[in-house]
């Protein structure tokens, strides 16, 4: 039972960590995009 349980936990952990990394990258990209937008608006003024 221990082998089956540990395999399942580790496999889902692997995919979950990858998804978390993707979400973090996406947030950073959106933050950078917003910052760029602000800088452009400042330039217009």
């Amino acid at each position, binding site marked *: *039972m*221990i*082998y*089956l349980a*540990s*395999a*399942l936990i*580790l*496999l889902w952990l*692997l*995919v979950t960590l*990858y*998804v978390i990394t*993707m979400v973090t*990258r*996406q947030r950073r*990209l959106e933050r*950078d*995009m917003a910052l*760029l*937008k602000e*800088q*452009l608006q400042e330039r*217009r003024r």
Partner: protein
Amino acid sequence: MANVTLEMKEQSKMQMSWADVGLMVLDVAAALALVALVWAALLYAKPAANLAGDEQLAQRIFYFHIGNVTAAFLGFVVSLVGSVGYLVRRQLGWDRLAHAGIELGVIFGAGVLLSGSIWAKPTWNTFWTWDPRLTTAAITVLIYVAYLLFRNGIDNRHSRALFSSIYALFAFLSVPLTYYSARWFRTIHPVVFNGSNAEAQGDFGIGATMSQTLMVATLAYTLLFAALLIHRWRQLRLEDELTELMEELY
């Protein structure tokens, strides 16, 4: 110019396109298929008749192992398509496809090695042995890890895409080698599809419920792979767009 491009991007971001809805449907389908796989692998599939105890329970890891194999294989095939596409068309979209494919191939490839090692402990009494199949699989994953490291070392986007595409073409040679290693060389790894291996340890016959569960595993991991690939490809596109805008501005 940068102002107009950014405004256009902002406007298109506000509207939810059919592609977004399609991707959301794919996400939900992948999640449901994975739930179905857990149920089928743990409850529906009959246990292997020739195994007992821990070995019999660990056999159920096989369904997730095959799912990961499918997704890793798809990742490497997508990387081949993306690399050939870039070399022919010289458009960065193809390179992004190859990059996303390899990233997922490495993740699921690591899943293959991990699940295989855990299955091996009660079956072969060791987590790892330098068997031809295990060795070629580990080398394949490492070759693709090296691809990701190699990419990071090149700043110019087109040079990076060109050299990465050439690297990925050669790297793909390790994929068929891994598949055929259990057929060409002496190995204790079972051959499940299109053949058999008399020296395999931990081999088992596949009954009706097992083969149905395998189909669910293949479908679930294919959907998961497709959903993650599209998300990652889009993210890489956004990263490139942001870099382009920065370059225009500064």
